[in-house]
């Protein structure tokens, strides 16, 4: 058991080594953290269910290179997003921006929960008015 645990821990310990983007892009840990956060949230357009952080196709590495360049030039996160959206559209961002076009994506979950809650409330309220008597309850359900 102990041996198994050591093996399991060792397995997880080496996992970060398998990352696609092996080299540190920036010496400054703040810039590096920003860089890693951005590339984790940009869709690889060639392999659409991966971020460019997780993909090793050349388009992803090209995009990582451009993002490194933009960060090095002192561009803000919003400017980098603008750069990507201008070229590839909103679809390139995994975290859609709150704009008119994407508003429905942001509010739909809340609307659905509200609607579901209301429907549940209505059903429960209706059931509470039903008599507890078993005979009548059967009648009530078959209307």
């Amino acid at each position: 058991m102990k041996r198994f645990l050591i093996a399991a821990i060792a397995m997880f310990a080496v996992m970060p080594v398998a990352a696609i983007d092996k080299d540190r892009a920036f010496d400054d840990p703040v810039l590096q953290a920003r860089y890693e956060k951005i590339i984790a949230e940009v869709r690889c357009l060639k392999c659409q269910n991966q971020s460019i952080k997780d993909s090793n196709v050349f388009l992803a590495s090209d995009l990582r290179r451009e993002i490194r360049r933009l960060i090095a030039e002192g561009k803000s996160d919003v400017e980098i997003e603008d750069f990507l959206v201008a070229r590839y559209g909103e679809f390139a961002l995994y975290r859609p921006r709150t704009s008119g076009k994407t508003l429905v994506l942001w509010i739909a979950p809340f609307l659905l929960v509200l609607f579901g809650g209301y429907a549940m409330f209505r059903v429960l309220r209706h059931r509470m008015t039903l008599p507890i008597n078993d005979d009548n309850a059967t009648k009530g359900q078959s209307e």
Partner: protein
Amino acid sequence: MSRYVLPLVAVIALIVFLVIGLTRGDPRALPSPYIGKPAPQFELPQLKDLAATVGSEDFRGQVALVNVWATWCVQCRVEHQFLMDLAAQGSIPIYGINWRDTRPEALRWLQQLGDPYIASGFDVDGVVGIDWGVYGAPESFLVGADGVVLFKQLGPLNWQIWESDFVPLIASGESSQ
């Protein structure tokens, strides 16, 4: 009876959305954000003569087809004969962007299959590709005389697509000058 109307409407709406989602064609095809906007400016070394350049300036004032191609791209091989035929017809200047390729292979490709391009830019590190929002070769951009992108085709062109999507726009692209 009326209590079944709402669920029925909801189910029908869901079916309609599913049908639209399943039949709208290639789910990887994204609308280019450049359509109706000026094409990005570019200037690249020419594939055949690295000392010379090719770029947006070369087709300013005329409707042009900008085709992104590469030798590693299988669909580009499918498309190539169409481009040769189109070039032979001579109705529109075709410029190439050789994207993320190696020069010897690209030159051999043009030698073996023919060269439909007035010139091809050699975009070895994909910088211009990113500027144009390219994510899968072949991609073809129809650029109007005023430099505005009129249409973008993802995937290989053929005469059917050319006649239905490009030809009507070429007329309007010329008149927008």
